[in-house]
């Protein structure tokens, strides 16, 4: 087992607005150095909340009530916002879902790519420009100079996502959080982007936490996977184990519900109501145990 870069230990979160309802229930996972760890689940499972907790951008209606996030010995949840900001961007970077809103529409790509290089790496303006051009080449943009001088709206969706990936890898971070990075893209572009993330990650030995609702995408890019349901980890396994011998009934049901062009009968099998009832009961029992221990109010 390789060394862990990120360790999430018993992370618990509640929705303050929604009567302290649990959003994350004792979530623990490890991302090793140089591996891609997938978090997969349906909408509302808490996938993005985990990503936001790491980045310190938890929305105000969500409260973390327990657990630790350890990044190479740093306890991220106890860092001051100044200390956290020093880590973010430099050591931890984000590839957001929607490249059209993640980029500032009023600034040229060059300005957005060089900010971090100048502020966090102390490069001069001309050094930063050269480096930004090289970064765009690394994400296989053929005409980096034109792109550097473009505004986001002048680029296609796939191109904008490449720019975001370049920005994420710009400072050679140790951990990249990819939150549904290909959801808005066509399948052919999606494949190129997945390929790109994987090759950059392998070249730089970066760890990636890859959040997705799509088991197919996770199957292709992740080494390990955590399956999340209602904020609780149902199963953790290597991608190979998960796909060939899923242990948890929920994972099995999710795989059956996923349509596959090579198997026309799949995609018509919803998760059985009996299974959902059983999962809900399991979660209610968990919540009752937490309440007995004084959570989430304590």
């Amino acid at each position, binding site marked *: 087992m390789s060394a862990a870069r990120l360790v999430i230990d018993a992370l618990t979160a509640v929705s303050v607005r929604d009567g302290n309802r649990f959003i994350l229930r004792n979530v623990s996972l490890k991302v090793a150095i140089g591996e891609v760890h997938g978090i997969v689940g349906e909408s509302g499972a808490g996938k993005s909340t985990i990503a936001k907790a790491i980045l310190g951008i938890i929305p105000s209606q969500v409260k973390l009530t327990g657990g630790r996030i350890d990044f190479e010995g740093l306890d991220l949840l106890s860092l001051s916002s100044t200390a956290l900001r020093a880590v973010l961007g430099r050591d931890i970077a984000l590839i957001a879902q929607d490249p059209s809103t993640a980029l500032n529409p009023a600034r040229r790509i060059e300005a957005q790519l060089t900010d971090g290089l100048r502020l966090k790496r102390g490069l001069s303006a001309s050094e930063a420009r050269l480096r930004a051009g090289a970064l765009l080449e690394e994400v296989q943009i053929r005409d980096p100079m034109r792109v550097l001088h473009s505004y986001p709206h002048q680029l296609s969706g796939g191109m904008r996502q490449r720019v975001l990936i370049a920005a994420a890898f710009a400072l050679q971070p140790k951990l990249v959080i990819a939150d549904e990075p290909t959801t808005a893209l066509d399948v052919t572009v999606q494949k190129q982007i997945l390929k790109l993330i994987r090759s950059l990650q392998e070249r730089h030995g970066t760890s990636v936490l890859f959040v997705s609702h799509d088991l197919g995408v996770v*199957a292709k890019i992740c080494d390990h996977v955590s399956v999340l349901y209602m904020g609780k980890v149902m199963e953790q396994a290597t991608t190979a184990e998960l796909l060939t011998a899923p242990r948890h009934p929920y994972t099995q*049901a*999710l795989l059956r519900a996923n349509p*596959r062009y090579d198997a026309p009968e799949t*995609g018509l099998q919803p998760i059985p109501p009996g299974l959902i009832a059983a999962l809900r009961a399991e979660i209610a029992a968990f919540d009752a145990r937490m309440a007995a221990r004084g959570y989430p109010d304590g």
Partner: protein
Amino acid sequence: MADELLIATGLVVSYGKSRRSLFARTQRLGVPVLHGVSLEVRKGETVGIVGESGSGKTTLGRTLIGLVKPAAGSVCFDGVDITALDEHKMRPLRPRMQMIFQDPMSSLNPRHTIGRILTQPMRLHGLANDYASARGRAHDILERVGLASSTMDCYSHELSGGQRQRVGIARAVVLRPSFVIADEIVSGLDVSTQAQVLRLLKELTSEMHLALVFISHDLSVIRSICDRVVVMQSGTIVEQGPCEQVFAAPRADYTRMLLDAIPLPILDPDWLSRGPTAENVGMN
């Protein structure tokens, strides 16, 4: 063939032709979206239209149902050329051709109850004699799509995404159409909800002998409910045929590329290194 319900021939559509910008030096020519598309839909069959963004699949759907008028070509529905019909003459055909939209949140009037959304079209088209019989039929259809009858008094924002899409389906089929177009209706849903909606559609098409045109970017979804598939690229049809045939032995390079790009949830470690690279797909 007598079985054909809808025949589209040589459809050409461009957008923006008549628009002239005050600041443009030259008159802007229309952006061509469909370049001579021909398509037939038989009674009771489900035809999938697949393509990436900008392929013209949504425009094709809207043209088939008469929401977009083609610059050239014709659409015949049950023997009637609807291309030249004005809104008034289209009216008697409308209940027979319905549409289910991608986003029920924006296609269902937020200020109307579901009951009103379902009964109003029946009354407008004179398909229900009185309010009570319209309510009765709305109740039946809600039950058929798997919603509680209390849904009648709900507003669309009170429902979940899957429930809303069921209402979208109920609204389309309550008029007992023979032809329905569904445009990306499951793309925002979780896989389990998606499976429920797809299953419902499959049952309804066979029960009601509905012809369904199912527009989607997802070939796996199309495979699970369609009889035939039409593959579109940049406003033209690059391949069409029965699903078994197209999926087992795609003839067009583009179809093959689309299939290769779909990440299946199966163990296939070489998938990422195979297939199209940025160079041969084009960067934009």
